[in-house]
C-alpha cells in the first residue's frame, strides 16, 4: 500500500481517528509521518491532515474540472494537497465545498468575529440596500419629495 501523501513510498504508519462517530483512516510512509508530525500527540497537524485528505476525496465525487481564475488552482490540486489555492477558490469551488463544509462543520454560516473594517463595510452595504428599496417604493408611489431625500442619503453613503 502506498503512502496517502506522497503516493510513492510504501506506507508503514497506519492511523485511525474517530471524529463525530465517523472513522477516518490514513496510511503514511515513514518520511511523511515525520514531516506531518503524526508522532506528535499534541500537534494540530494530524487533525488537519486527516480532515484535509478526507475533504479532497469527498469533493472529487462532486465532479467538476474548472480552474480558479485568480490562482490557477484545480480540483486535482485540491485532491493532492487537501488545501485550497487562494481566497477566490472558495467562490470557484463553492458548489463542491458547500456539501463538504456542511458535513465537516457545525453550521454553514459564520457567526463569529468579523474584522472591524469589514463590519463597517457590510453595515454600509446593507444600509445602501435598504435605501435603494425605499427609493424604489417612493418612486412607485410617486412620493418624489421622499425619493429626493433618500437619493441624497444614498449619494452621501456612496461618497463616504
Amino acid at each position: 500500500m502506498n503512502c496517502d501523501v506522497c503516493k510513492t513510498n510504501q506506507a508503514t504508519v497506519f492511523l485511525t481517528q474517530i471524529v463525530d462517530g465517523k472513522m477516518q483512516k490514513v496510511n503514511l510512509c515513514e518520511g511523511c509521518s515525520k514531516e506531518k508530525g503524526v508522532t506528535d500527540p499534541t500537534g494540530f497537524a494530524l487533525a488537519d491532515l486527516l480532515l484535509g485528505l478526507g475533504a479532497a476525496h469527498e469533493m472529487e465525487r462532486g465532479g467538476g474540472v474548472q480552474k480558479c481564475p485568480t490562482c490557477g488552482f484545480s480540483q486535482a490540486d485540491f485532491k493532492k494537497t487537501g488545501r485550497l489555492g487562494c481566497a477566490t477558490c472558495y467562490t470557484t469551488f463553492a458548489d463542491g465545498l458547500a456539501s463538504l463544509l456542511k458535513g465537516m462543520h457545525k453550521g454553514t454560516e459564520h457567526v463569529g468575529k468579523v474584522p472591524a473594517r469589514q463590519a463597517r463595510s457590510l453595515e454600509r452595504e446593507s444600509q445602501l440596500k435598504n435605501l435603494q428599496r425605499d427609493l424604489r417604493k417612493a418612486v412607485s408611489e410617486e412620493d418624489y419629495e421622499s425619493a429626493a431625500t433618500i437619493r441624497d442619503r444614498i449619494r452621501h453613503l456612496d461618497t463616504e
Partner: protein
Amino acid sequence: MAIHNILNTSGEWLRGEGPHNQIVVSSRVRLARNLKNFAFPGWAKKHDRLQILEAIKPQVEALPEMSDAFSVYSQDLSALEKQVLVERHLISREHAAKGVGSAVVMNRKQTLSIMINEEDHLRMQAIRAGLQLKNVFKMIDKADSALEDKLDFAFHPQLGYLTACPTNVGTGMRASAMVHLPALVLSEQINQVIQAVNKIGLAVRGLYGEGTEALGNLFQVSNQTTLGEKEDDIIARLHKVIEQIIEHEQNARQMLLQKKPKTLLDHIGRGYGILRHAYSMNSKEALNLLSFMKLGIDLSFFPEECRQPVDELFMETQPAHLQKGTQQKLAADERDSLRAEIIRAKLAGFPRPDVGASEPPPPPPSNGGTSSQN
C-alpha cells in the same frame, strides 16, 4: 532578543502556575488568518511568499505584546533550534520544515507565538499553563484585532475567515487543552471518555501505541469545527468539557486509592525505581514513567518540591532539548544514555514514595552490623 535567550529559558507555561494545573498542563488557542490578495502559502510562488512575509512581519513586530520579541526568518534557525521550538509548541512541525519565505515572532515569555507563511499566511497562538482558555483566547484575540487594523484579511461574509484548509474556515480558531489522565488510563475508562467527548464535536488525541495507551498519559482535547459557532461559545463548551474530564480523573484517582492501591503503588514505585536507576531510556519510556511520578506527587506520595523537577523533565528529556546542550548531534543510543543520566541526576535527592497509611511500610533494609534473624 537572541535565540539563546529563548532556548535557555523555559516559557512561562512550562513553569506550570495556573488553575487546575495538576491535571491540565496547558491551554492553547490558535487563529489562522490570510491576506486578501495573495495565494495561500502552499500555492503562492516564492516571490509572492517573500512579499507576503515582508508585508506581515513588521506589523507583527510592531504589536505592543511583541515589544521584546524574538523574531527570526526560518532559514536562520538550525534544525535543532527549530526542533526545540517544536517541542515547546512554539512552532508547528510543518513550520519547522519551512525555509526562505517564512518566519516566526514570539514574545519573551513564550506565551505568544506568530508563525508567518505556515499553512496560512498567519498562524497566531497563545499558550498558558493550566486551564485558562478564556484568558488565552483574549490574548490572541487582542493581537488579531490589532493586526486586522493594518492588514487586509481574507474574509467572506458567509464563510468567515478563509483558510487554506476548509477544516479551519469560519473562526479559523483551534482551542485546546493538554490534560494528564493517568488514572483514567489505569482504570481503563479513558476510551469511554474519549468517545463521549467525540460525540459532542470535540476531538481527543494522544499518541496511540499498544492498546489505547497514550504517550505519558497526555491527551489533547480540542474543538473540531470552526464554522457555525461563535468563538466564545466554542471556548465555553470546551472549558465545560475539560472541567468534567478533570472531575472524572479525580474520581478515578480516588477509586484507585480505595479499590486498587497496590496497582497504583506498583506503577508509582516502578516509575521511581526505574527512573532513578536506569542507564538507558528512550523518550517514550521516560514520558510514561514520569507520568506516574507526576501522579505520585499529585497524590502526595512525594513532597511538593518534587513537582517542578518532574515537570521540567517532561520537556528536558525530549530529543532536541536533550541535544541543545551538546555540541554535536547524538545517535539514538547516545541520547538514551544521556537521557537516563539527566533523569538520575535530577531525581538523585528524591525520597522514596511515602505510602503512609495506604500500605504498610516496606521492611527496613537489613543493617550491615547486625546478624539476620533466620
